């Protein structure tokens, strides 16, 4: 390259940098509601860290995944991002994320022991830590206390046997047109949560094959299908329920498996006369309280970031219990740290209590890049079984067949890695 050409390209590169982002701007990609709210937490960070300016980019959840992968391929990743924790295995596989283990070891504010184990674990891929949990998500029971009482029960069920008894009793009282539980057919979470309660892992051979044709999963799918067979649950998807809060208030169903955001929604949207007729309870397990999904978002730093130190300072700031408490009041998101749960506001909330108990027992989904595709198949095969187009045994075998096909490439990769050492 001649000198003028080199000058020209440098000048060009400089102008390009100048228009895309000012220097020393920490770029932070966030999604959905969190991306709108986090801006309110940043002035304090910028005040205590002079010279660092954070620019938040808002991504819609539906487009975020494609945008992240495109950014990795095009080497245009931000400094740090909010990441749904099921996306971590994929981005780790792409070597796009910075391992955070050493930084956490020297950190005063990020204390792994303060985090719920199952949630923390979703960020650890093959022994390497890639993210710090920001907020958590899990599924448990929302239920109508009055309907349960009318059916003759004072307390929510703790195991599947009691759960079945209550559903049968509620359905018997309610009659046709009303149901015991709502399990929208377009959601994979209820069935996945039941499956995570089993002793057998969902994948075997190091995530190379499906393990759905196992006694445990058949038991979980069996309960799921039974709820539809006995008309305890209506055969509907989310789109056919115009408004879950209205229908819950009307008693269309008594149990609803859902997540933390619905605490706020139910408080806001239920009619006043119903406002004391509902509560949350941990998800009943096969033989007593058991696992559920370990969902939520983590904060990650990208391997290509030139400002990792500042990015880590921002993660530490956002992980501080007092900042997390402010974040919770702004979004309603539940915090991943026990110390935040011990603060008076959250400790006093009766609706959040069941979440605290459930979060101590959450289990991560298998950490393979293909998991979201597998989840989709779990949902589809669950729908086939629920609508009676497949028996439970047939569905379990079919799911294994489909999942094994999805994981074919992974088996080849694992075999090659094994051969190399």
């Amino acid at each position, binding site marked *: 390259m001649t000198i003028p050409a080199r000058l020209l390209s440098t000048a060009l590169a400089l102008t390009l940098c100048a228009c895309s982002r000012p220097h020393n701007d920490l770029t932070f990609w966030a999604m959905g509601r969190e991306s709108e709210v986090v801006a309110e937490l940043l002035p304090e960070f910028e005040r205590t860290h002079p010279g660092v300016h954070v620019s938040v980019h808002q991504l819609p959840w539906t487009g975020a*995944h*494609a945008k992240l*992968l495109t950014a*990795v*391929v095009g080497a245009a990743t931000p400094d740090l991002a909010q990441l749904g924790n099921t996306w971590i295995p*994929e981005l780790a*596989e*792409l*070597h796009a994320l910075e391992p955070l283990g050493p930084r956490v070891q020297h950190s005063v504010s990020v204390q792994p022991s303060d985090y719920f184990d199952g949630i923390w674990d979703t960020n650890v891929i093959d022994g390497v830590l890639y993210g710090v949990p920001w907020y958590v998500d899990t599924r448990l029971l929302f239920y109508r206390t009055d309907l349960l009482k009318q059916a003759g029960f004072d307390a929510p069920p703790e195991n599947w046997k009691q759960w079945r008894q209550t559903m049968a009793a509620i359905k018997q009282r309610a009659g046709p047109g009303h149901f015991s539980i709502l399990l929208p*057919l*377009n959601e994979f979470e209820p069935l996945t949560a039941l499956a995570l309660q089993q002793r057998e892992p969902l994948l075997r051979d190091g995530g190379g094959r499906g393990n759905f044709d196992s006694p445990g999963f058949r038991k979980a799918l069996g309960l799921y299908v039974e709820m539809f067979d006995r008309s305890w649950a209506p055969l*509907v*998807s989310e*789109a*056919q329920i*115009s408004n879950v809060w209205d229908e819950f208030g009307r008693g269309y169903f008594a149990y609803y498996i859902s997540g933390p955001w619905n605490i706020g929604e139910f408080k806001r949207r239920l009619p006043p006369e119903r406002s004391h007729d509902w509560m949350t309870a941990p998800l009943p397990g096969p033989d007593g309280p058991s696992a559920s999904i370990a969902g939520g978002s983590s904060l990650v730093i990208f391997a290509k970031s030139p400002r990792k130190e500042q990015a880590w300072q921002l993660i530490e700031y956002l992980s501080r219990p007092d900042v997390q408490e402010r974040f919770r009041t702004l979004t309603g998101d539940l915090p991943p740290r026990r110390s935040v749960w011990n603060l008076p506001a959250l400790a006093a909330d009766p609706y959040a209590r069941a979440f605290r108990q459930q979060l101590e027992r959450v289990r991560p989904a298998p950490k393979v*890049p*293909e998991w*979201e*595709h597998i989840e989709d198949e779990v949902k*589809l095969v669950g*729908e*086939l079984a629920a*609508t009676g187009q497949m028996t439970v045994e047939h569905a379990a075998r079919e799911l294994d067949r489909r999942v094994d096909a*999805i994981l074919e*490439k*992974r088996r*080849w*990769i694992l075999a090659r890695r094994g051969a190399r050492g």
Partner: protein
Amino acid sequence: MRPNLAGWCFAGPALVVIAVFFMLPVAAAFVLSLTDFDIYAIADPANLRVVWLHNYVQLLRTALFWKALGNTLYFVVVGVPLSIVVSLATAVLLDSELARFKGAFRTALFAPVVTTVVAVAVVWRNLFHARYGWINYALGAVGIAPVDWLGNPHWSMPAIILFAVWKNFGINMIIFVAALQAIPRELYEAARIEGASATQQFRLVTLPLLGPTLLMVGIVTMAGYFQLFAEPYVMTQGGPLQSTVSALYLMYEQGFKWWSLGVASAVAFALFALMLASTALLLRATRARLAAWGG
């Protein structure tokens, strides 16, 4: 030699653009369809395997691929004729000498074409709602039981077709209006003097003279309808029970949701072959008819 050079100079820029922005990507996509390109290959090119025709063979063995093809054909076979009939009917009405406020009606009927799919899909989702939607309300008024439009696998595709036809008929309508205006009025006058009824005039004068336009509209509409994607994407996400998964929707899921770009490219080429075959078939079938009409 001279005239040749001049010709190349004129065609050159266009050819370069077509080569760079069309031929090259298509060739690249074809090469991609012979590999198992996925996120592992993005991580490390050594993870890329050349699988030759395996993606295609595997597709032919996948039930969902056939289902998606079936859904797409359903949409094309019902949707294209329906769309053309509606466009032609509205065009004839607009062209009629009895019609008043032609400008206003033309604008109103064309309006759906310029709306965004996502915005009107929200409106139509509410219209289609099983318990609270206006369509079922209207059906109820004439004694028809409510239909679970978007929740019942038998009704989801008809619902998508209705929505797509409403959204797209305006553009063909405008083309037909222009073609109708080009038909000399004397022909109708002559036909009337000969004692032809309105139906006879339409069948023997209008249709034959619209022949070439009909063929063009048919081909363009068919090519467009084969690429069904946005409607199921915003209305049903392919559900219920995958009854609205189209070939292109399958490609999107494989390519941009699961990042199996090799398989997605194979789907794209399979769809391309299908579209090419159906267009050739349509051309051949109509050419004979056009010759008979003398068009």
